[in-house]
């Protein structure tokens, strides 16, 4: 802007900055345009989530009004109290928690070992195993549910198996969740492990540890953030799962929170306020964890695909 001060008296000096201003103005217009588009995209993407939260806080008469009330004012917590006092809410939250904790713990232990093999050893059949892991990730759950159901209903009749497997058994669901959580965890973990240079373990071995000791003392602490990220992702997958729980947990007191939420309408008519409150509560743990790990996960399935 200093170009507009009278310090530049010659016509040449005035003309040149004038052109620069025009260029700048063109840039400014472009930037405003870009930001406007970005705001619009942001609004469209976030609105549904906002609408859920807003509805959850609105009193019933504001919800059931032909003209939308854009803000939850006056706000109320009654939808939330209503939701959590519904039948099975707490039982189903508890069920979800049990399932998730078991799935995450089991798959992390098992996946850690497999990831170790894939990232730290060369062996015959390694490539085939990786292809298997990736291929298995792609199997549609719907296709697996049919034979699983047959198996579970059979196992439920077999003495000695029926205390873990069978319809309406959380333990059965836990086992089935491993089908998609385990391959994913193996794949992600070995990616994290590959990021830890091998020489560190070699240095430790020369320093006097066994190979296994080097894994425990050097690799494990270094891959810990990856382990945390992977287990949170496993948590999210297990918490969000619907169809397996829907098919295998038919008893209301045995269901998980997603099934509880999906059957909200059927059981109680559509009661939008409490439904949105329940949805908000269901999404809450996931959102919190997601925000914690979001930087890492986008690389999970595609990491390193661009390498110059």
């Amino acid at each position: 802007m200093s170009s507009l001060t009278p310090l530049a008296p010659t016509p040449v000096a005035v003309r040149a900055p004038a052109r620069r201003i025009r260029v700048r103005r063109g840039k400014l217009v472009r930037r405003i345009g870009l930001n406007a588009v970005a705001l619009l995209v942001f609004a469209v993407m976030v609105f549904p989530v906002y609408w859920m939260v807003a509805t959850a806080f609105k009193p019933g008469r504001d919800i059931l009004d032909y003209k939308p009330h854009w803000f939850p004012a006056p706000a109320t917590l009654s939808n939330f109290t209503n939701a959590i006092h519904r039948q099975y809410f707490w039982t189903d939250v508890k069920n979800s928690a049990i399932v998730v904790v078991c799935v995450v713990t089991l798959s992390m232990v098992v996946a850690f070992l497999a990831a170790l093999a894939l990232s730290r050893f060369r062996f015959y059949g390694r490539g085939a195993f990786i292809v298997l892991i990736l291929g298995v990730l792609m199997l549609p759950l719907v296709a697996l549910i049919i034979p699983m159901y047959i198996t579970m209903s059979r196992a439920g009749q077999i003495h000695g198996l029926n205390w873990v497997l069978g319809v309406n058994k959380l333990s059965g669901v836990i086992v089935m969740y491993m089908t998609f959580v385990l391959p994913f965890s193996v794949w992600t973990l070995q990616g994290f492990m590959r990021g830890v240079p091998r020489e560190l373990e070699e240095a430790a071995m020369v320093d006097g540890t066994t190979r296994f000791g080097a894994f425990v003392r050097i690799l494990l602490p270094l891959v810990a953030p990856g382990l945390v990220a992977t287990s949170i992702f496993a948590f999210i997958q297990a918490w969000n799962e619907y169809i397996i729980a829907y098919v295998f947990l038919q008893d209301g007191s045995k269901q998980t929170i997603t099934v509880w939420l999906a059957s909200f309408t059927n059981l109680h008519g559509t009661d939008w306020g409490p439904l949105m409150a329940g949805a908000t509560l269901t999404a809450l743990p996931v959102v919190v964890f997601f925000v914690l790990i979001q930087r890492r996960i986008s690389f999970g399935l595609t990491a390193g695909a661009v390498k110059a």
Partner: protein
Amino acid sequence: MAAIRFTHVIKEYAGGTLAVDDLNLEVAEGEFVVLVGPSGCGKTTALRMVAGLEEITDGEIRIGDRVVNDLAPRDRDIAMVFQNYALYPHKTVYENLVFGLRMRKVPKSEQRRRVEEIARILGLEEMLERRPAQLSGGQRQRVAMGRAIVREPQAFLMDEPLSNLDAKLRVQMRAEIARIQQTLRVTTLYVTHDQVEAMTMGHRVAVMRSGVLQQVDTPQRLYDLPGNLFVASFVGSPAMNLLDVALEREGGGLVCRSGGVEIELPVDIAARRPQLEQYVGRRLALGIRPEALSESSTDPDAPRIRGRALLVEALGAESLAHVEVNAMALDRPELVDVSAAQAHLLPVGDRTATLLARLEHDTGVKPGHVVDLAADVRRLHFFDLDTGSAIPVAGVPVTAAVV
């Protein structure tokens, strides 16, 4: 302290790469041996086999009088310095240094004493509580050294420990490592592809090429009496000039001819290499180090090589002249170190070769000038064109050319 001894060691990787082929080498107790060679020649592989990080396909490695082929790294009592240091990023400097002692169950008080002593020697006292990420490159290098020293092992193994440092620091650490090795007298096997490191640090230098050991000797003898064309072209910077010459008898003496260049060999020189007689009428490779060439004015009796200066590089203490001469350059890439050879040979015409000459710093030679170079006939090297082996000098023991 213990000697390290390779006996007919072979390493073949799973893919079929023969990384080390029949290696025989002894690093005596307290000796500092440097392993050099171009990239990919198997230096790291050899070192890692000693450390136990790589399986040995065939042969035997001993540390002291133990065969260590099947021992785990931790049972070999050696310490290793890695190229990128491999410091444990989640441990402080102190923890990095003490790790090996803890693993070996050294008493706590002894641990502390030894780490503190090493930290003092290496000037790391101020940073014991820092993590590797908070150190400069040179400091990291010191910690890596410290981690090896503190263990008081039977032998040190170092894989290009200085290659990640800048030039100044490298010179400084080079001296420091040599000094430490001298005080501790620990058997050391040191891998590098830096010639200067090899020549200045090692008691002996072992030159490798594509998995095969070429020659092992003291730096000076390696320089003065290279056993074959590869060693001759690899050792020394700038590299040795190599010409393809025909040996002819003229009058009573021998003459090397190549294009328009003619170098007459005095009788005594020819007599020192009795085998030269067998090459009369045949071609052989003639090697002249750049410092064996000078401006003719200094030595009126020496054979002269006339050429045209293409480029004169002033290096401060001296000048390096690239001189185009009418002669045939040696064209046997399979026998020489190609990377070094190509670096100084400017485009070669059919019958012209470029010679490098170390001239006085105040030389008057300018690009385009015609110069007469005097060759010091006592410092010529002769090699067989088929095998690449040096034609030996009588009375001097055959060097360890293991081709």
